[in-house]
């Protein structure tokens, strides 16, 4: 038996993904969390900041401070880290399309605190490719976006050596439906795509490139099948070691290490009996900690009530305490790897590696990850996997406690408080943010701003590293929207493939689906033409998995589906509904901005003479809001607990029938 090592393994960085309302409110939260023993920060930015809009842009309406903190300019960034000494902090920023800009603001904030930027430690997520597949906060087309990613990498390796410039994400791939094999294959293909781009950019010599290879880190998901997830992490480590040594010729074992942070799975968290999420989160944490050779460097856990709405500080504290109990109370860190030599683990790791290698070759033959994304291949593969997962839940083959089995429950004291167990962002926050932004704009020197923006434009056009001029912009008081607008003009904007054009999922489909198909067809005949649905994603929220699954299911039961992808204004949605002559509009909103968006869409519909068109919504909609929306005339509201897509489809047919004076079928499928 191997002896215990003499020194314990060091605990991982403990963070909580957080930020809301405003820079000062978030600063208060951060300082409270650090006081509770959190050892790093993980900044959540709001959607306008992530997609390059100022808080007063029309597209930002209703989104300011909702899913994260609004950062418009240097003043906001300074407020966010007020009295938090940056030389001692390890900050992770979930930022992608605007990563160079937020890093520029962070560096400038450090300068203003009197901190040498070379000392800074932290991570910019800066993985644009997965944004085209999941999450959706991209702005520019893939080619210039990859260039911005490599600019951040080459800049930090030279100027901020301890920074992790990019966190290649498999996290969001799992949220979009990826199997472990797909997670491995697409994340590692992304990493090689980025490293190849850096190598081929000619910006660095061999030594610096070796340093870049060593700075690549990953951001991984851990699902509930925690044995397989452990194997996945070991597979990641083994495959990365091999890639680093064989593809890039780097042999230093320290630089070959697969360094990763984790946020455990949100996809599997349930709205029904939400207290069960606590044990799910703990089990998922085990997957990324049990195996020492594949242990996470940083962990952030979701809160138990994430599927209900925004977590409160107490909910986040609970998540932090889970990590602390595992690291400090248990004996986990005293042992070497407890799986070494296990033939069971070994066999499954091998199986995952072989599957992932085959899929990586498939991507490579298409020319790499950028091409496989642009052609829609990867997205279609993910949508297919996600569709299969949902079908398995419907059939009951995939069990989710409290959702498709063991649904009986006693009323929970956790969700019955006066706040219904979630946090609400103050409705005045957006207005206050806009006022402070406008005051900031009035206070700066326009000449300096213009000079800085024109230097930025030149750098974008000439191919110079974007970081230097971005830092100049940060110092001059440029805003997030201004920085992004210059690059939008130079690079153009992009819409990614939706991936919903997968082949029909009729194989072995239930009689339920066939029954609905008959109803759809019969109703179409009675109304004179085939039934058409518009699936719309208003606002800046890019989480499109739900909308995509409804679109695919709708097509499979015989609807004609109009789906235009993410980030639409209410006006665009209503125009599409009119031009396409649809029978019903389905909206998908997960950012919490449903109330404002729905009101606006209802108003636009009225102005277009379409007030009688039925409207349904899916998303994370708290119960109080649901009641209010129903009072406004919304025909149906679906939340994460509605997992039976056939039932939703049957509902849609009946809603259309009622709105057109036909008797509903009113019979369960």
């Amino acid at each position, binding site marked *: 038996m191997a002896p215990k090592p003499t020194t314990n393994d060091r605990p991982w960085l403990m963070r909580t993904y957080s930020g809301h309302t405003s820079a000062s409110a978030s600063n208060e939260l951060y300082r409270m969390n650090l006081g509770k023993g959190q050892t790093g920060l993980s900044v959540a930015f709001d959607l306008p900041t992530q997609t390059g809009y100022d808080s007063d842009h029309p597209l930002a309406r209703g989104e300011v401070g909702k899913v994260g903190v609004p950062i418009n300019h240097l003043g906001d960034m300074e407020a966010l880290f007020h009295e938090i000494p940056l030389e001692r902090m390890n900050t992770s920023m979930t930022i992608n399309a605007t990563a160079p800009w937020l890093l520029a603001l962070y560096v400038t904030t450090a300068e203003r605190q009197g901190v040498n930027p070379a000392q800074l430690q932290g991570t910019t997520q800066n993985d644009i490719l997965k944004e085209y597949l999941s999450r959706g906060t991209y702005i520019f087309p893939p080619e210039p976006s990859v260039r911005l990613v490599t600019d951040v990498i080459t800049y930090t390796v030279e100027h901020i050596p301890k920074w992790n410039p990019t966190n290649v994400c498999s996290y969001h791939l799992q949220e979009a439906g990826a199997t472990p094999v797909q997670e491995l294959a697409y994340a590692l293909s992304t990493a090689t795509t980025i490293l190849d781009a850096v190598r081929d950019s000619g910006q660095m010599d061999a030594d610096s490139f070796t340093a870049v290879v060593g700075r690549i880190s990953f951001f991984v998901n851990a699902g509930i099948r925690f044995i397989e997830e452990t194997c996945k992490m070991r597979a990641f480590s083994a495959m990365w070691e091999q890639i680093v040594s064989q593809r890039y010729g780097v042999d230093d074992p320290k630089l070959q290490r697969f360094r990763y942070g984790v946020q455990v799975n949100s996809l599997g968290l349930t709205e029904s009996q939400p207290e069960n999420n606590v044990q799910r989160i703990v089990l998922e944490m085990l997957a990324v900690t049990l195996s020492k050779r594949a242990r996470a460097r940083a962990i952030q856990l979701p809160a138990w009530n994430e599927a209900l709405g925004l977590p409160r500080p107490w909910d986040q504290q609970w998540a932090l305490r889970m990590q602390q109990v595992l690291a400090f109370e248990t004996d986990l860190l005293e042992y070497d790897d407890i799986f070494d030599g296990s033939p069971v683990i070994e066999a499954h790791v091998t199986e995952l590696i072989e599957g992932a290698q085959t899929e990586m070759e498939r991507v490579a033959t298409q020319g790499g990850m950028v091409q496989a994304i642009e052609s829609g291949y990867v997205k279609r593969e993910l949508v297919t996997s996600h569709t299969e997962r949902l079908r398995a839940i419907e059939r009951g083959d995939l069990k989710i406690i409290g959702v498709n089995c063991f649904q009986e429950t006693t009323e929970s004291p956790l969700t019955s408080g006066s706040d219904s167990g979630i946090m609400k962002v103050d409705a005045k926050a957006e207005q206050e943010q806009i006022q402070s932004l406008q005051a900031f704009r009035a206070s700066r020197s326009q000449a300096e701003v213009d000079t800085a923006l024109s230097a930025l434009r030149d750098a974008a056009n000439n191919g110079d590293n974007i970081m230097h001029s971005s830092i100049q912009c940060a110092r001059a008081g440029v805003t997030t929207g201004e920085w992004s607008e210059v690059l939008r003009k130079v690079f153009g904007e992009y*819409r990614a493939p939706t991936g919903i054009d997968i082949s029909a999922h*009729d194989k072995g489909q239930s009689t339920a689906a066939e029954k609905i198909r008959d109803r759809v067809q019969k109703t179409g005949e009675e109304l004179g033409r085939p039934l058409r649905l518009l699936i719309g994603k208003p606002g800046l929220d890019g989480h499109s998995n739900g909308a995509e699954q409804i679109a695919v299911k709708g097509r499979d039961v015989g609807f004609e589906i*109009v789906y235009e992808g993410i980030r639409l204004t209410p006006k665009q949605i209503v125009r599409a509904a009119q031009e396409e002559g649809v029978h019903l509009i389905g909206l998908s909103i997960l950012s919490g901005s449903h109330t404002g968006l729905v009101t606006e869409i209802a108003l636009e519909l009225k102005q277009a003479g379409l007030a009688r068109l039925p409207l349904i919504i899916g998303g994370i909609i708290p119960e109080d809001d649901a009641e209010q929306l129903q009072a406004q005339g919304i025909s149906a509201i679906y939340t994460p607990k509605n997992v039976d897509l056939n039932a939703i489809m049957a509902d849609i047919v009946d809603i259309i029938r009622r709105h057109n004076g036909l008797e509903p079928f009113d019979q369960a499928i």
Partner: protein
Amino acid sequence: MTTVSDTLPDPAELASSVAEGKRPALATALNLLDDRRPEARKIAARYLALLAGKRQATRSHLIGITGPPGAGKSSLTSALIPIWRNRGLRVGILAVDPSSPISGGALLGDRLRMKTSFDDEGVFIRSLAGRGEQGGLSAEVWPMCLSMLATFDITVIETVGVGQSEIDIAKMSDTTCFVAQPGSGDSIQFLKAGIMEIPHILVVNKEDMGAAARKTLMDIRAATGREYSGEEWSVPVLSVSSTQGSGIEELAAQLDLHHDWLATRNLIEPRRRQFQAEWILKRLRQEFGSFGVAQLQTQLQTAHSGLDRLIGEGDSPFEQYESLRARLLTAWNRD
């Protein structure tokens, strides 16, 4: 209870509003033309007849854009839109996507690929499912085109070319534009095989792909190149990139040239009449078979000398179809 479905529109009012270019009216008209209930068909027939009476000799141009999957037809269309809009022209687009042969359902994704300014009142996009007519364009397309032509300066029908639909699209467009996919021999085989008459304009998209695009361009030039006599339309083969915007102005100019070429020879109206006749014949053939149509033609040739003259100017395709159908049924009942 008043409902959406039983408030079928008043055909006269609808025809006036569509001719005046009102967007909500056009949307209503397209819904009506899609409506297969007998009572809706009657109103639709009336509406089309009234609309034909109102249609002025505008510069309306019906453009068909087709080509293999992935050739970039939608992005080419969306690159053309700003050029037309800058000239003050109003643009209607009919985008046809295939239906699932199993469920009858369809994903209509073309809107997504058209990066138009959605707040522009001068652009209107309607998607249409192929609805399983053996790869061909569904019956609604022609009447819908007539409505769009009454409202817009330019109407584009865009469809993925898989066999029958190319032939269909060439049989209803003033100008047919074929978009080839670089690096794939399919397009050239297709043209060589003579499945479709040579389109009026050939486009090789994605010239940003470099060598592959240049090779396809040369292959197409070689496959289609010949001497054109002075009286013929000389088919241009263009190289463009819709993502980079290169060659798009030239394409717009060629589309214009072809329209002018047809107009100066007074070919636009006769061609459209012929398209309408063929549309009607196709419907009749579906219902009565080749035998029925042959019989009808024998009957008609006593009164008319040719097929295109069969269709009187200003008539509604639905009404003509009904009257020919009635005639055939009467003849059959008499026999």
